[in-house]
């Protein structure tokens, strides 16, 4: 464990804990409006209540669950499509590879948030639509990376040697290609987790995320905008947790890379 990885995990841990606890217990129900409107933080409501009288700590805890779920599922979709696409392009013949590479370049020219907007417009807004949109939008970047990594591995002598000794292509993929590209891929997946969480918050903030009753930090922040004066904590708490989650994921990614490659002493 290096220091970067430790800091990253330390930032992630409280959020994972909040989300885990929220599965079993929250101080109040997410729809309980019994706390009085805009109660300041106190013993009954550690973070106070929002303008509907809902307990802010409860909302923030459930928001942590939404953020983590979105992040993990979006990265899973991105990994599934991106790695498969990248592998296909890496192994494909010259023409198919050129076409795929050009298509990826064009997809990457669309900013991810705009691609996500397109997908959200296609499906009715829901948490699933958000996850799908973000996962698809991110998969192009991952596919391009995978393709480049696969090409690098396939050019190595040990692949030629392995082929010469009669290893089948599927075994080369599982035995040589995937293990060799995994370190670089895993770092990128961790980075994408942060990006996915940010994208989900942005969509929810713009009012294009999962609708009520789903709770997201992005929508909590949108709602906080109206009550900034009376209740600054409702603006600070979700944003701070969001920053912790994303920074934690980014630092953990860097830490993983440092751990995988000791030659990288200087962080760049």
């Amino acid at each position, binding site marked *: 464990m290096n220091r970067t990885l430790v800091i990253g995990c330390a930032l992630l841990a409280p959020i994972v804990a909040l989300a885990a606890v929220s599965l079993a217990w929250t101080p109040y129900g997410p729809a309980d409006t019994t706390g009085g409107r805009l109660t300041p933080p106190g013993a009954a409501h550690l973070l106070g209540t929002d303008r509907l009288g809902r307990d802010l700590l409860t909302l923030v805890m459930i928001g942590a669950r939404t953020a983590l779920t979105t992040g993990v599922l979006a990265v899973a979709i991105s990994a599934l499509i991106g790695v498969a696409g990248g592998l296909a392009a890496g192994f494909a013949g010259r023409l198919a590879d050129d076409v795929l590479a050009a298509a990826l370049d064009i997809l990457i020219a669309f900013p991810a948030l705009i691609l996500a907007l397109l997908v959200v417009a296609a499906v009715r807004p829901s948490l699933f639509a958000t996850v799908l949109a973000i996962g698809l939008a991110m998969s192009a970047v991952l596919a391009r990376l995978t393709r480049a990594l696969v090409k690098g591995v396939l050019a190595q002598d040990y692949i030629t040697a392995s082929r010469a000794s009669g290893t089948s292509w599927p075994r080369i993929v599982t035995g040589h290609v995937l293990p060799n590209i995994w370190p670089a891929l895993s770092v990128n997946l961790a980075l994408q987790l942060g990006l996915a969480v940010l994208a989900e918050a942005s969509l929810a*903030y713009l009012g294009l995320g999962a609708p009520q009753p789903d709770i997201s930090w992005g929508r909590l922040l949108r709602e906080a905008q109206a009550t*900034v004066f009376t209740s600054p904590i409702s603006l600070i708490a979700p944003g701070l947790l969001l920053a912790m989650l994303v920074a934690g994921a980014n630092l953990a990614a860097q830490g993983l890379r440092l751990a995988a490659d000791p030659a990288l002493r200087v962080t760049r």
Partner: protein
Amino acid sequence: MLAYLARRTLLLAASLLVASAVLFVLLRLLPGDAATTLLSLDADAGQVAAVRRELGVDRPIPGQFAIWLDHLARLDFGRSFVSRAPVGEEIAARLDVTIPLTLMAFALAVVIAIPAGVRTAARGRSWVLAALTQLGLAVPVFWVGMLLMNVFALRLRWLPAGGFPPDGWADPMAALACLALPVLTVALVMSAVLVRYVHSATLDVLDSGYLRTARALGASFPAAMWRHGLRNAAAPVVPILGIELATTFVGAVVVEDVFALPGLGGLLVRAFERHDYPVIQGVLALSTFAVLAAGFLADLLQRLLDPRLRRSIAGSP
């Protein structure tokens, strides 16, 4: 160089065509169309068909695309399904906000990032910088906007909290005051990304033999950096700038929402909610063109800065 320019221009044109085709098909495949948005829920099938015919969305998709491309070539983006106003005019009216916002934020981000990146690379590792860039990468841009608005507009009352003068740039100071916080918001977040690239490019230069030689020959550090370092450090950063310009645009789109600015962002979000295809297409075609053009210019600039790129690779772009 000429052959490269020709090939790169051809690639740019091809990407544009493919991108607009992808956009067009994707948007047409979406469920729910403008006819149902325009009419009330209890409209009968005949009314829906009539509106669909009037909007031209009942024709086969390739036919619609050909018409759209033909109009696009004449800079005619069609009419909004909802407001019936020409999309070109709707967009033009909002560029007054979005273009200055994007360009000023981009310029400010570069002005912050270059000295910060070079300085910290020269001085060795800085914990403050590392923490600040991590923070900049981790915070959502709209949250930064809300915090800045809360402090500088609502509490200190130095700057307006949002909105834009209805007569646009007629009073430049008023317009600038409205854009100050949005520009700062986007620039702060962007510079956190940029400073890392500048930092690592500078470190590469600092490691280089030519800089050590220049120092050994008696050039002071700033002189050596200025004559030999900066241009070498700039070469890998320039293509990143092309990409970052696109990111700045997206940041601007979201931040416009925070500060209630009448820019492209608001237009786009509303158009998405109402399935207003011509508006979505117009805005996205324009922004895609801008992104691809920025990449094109960045590539050219990189070639001008780095003569090695002009010679070595004959085949690849």
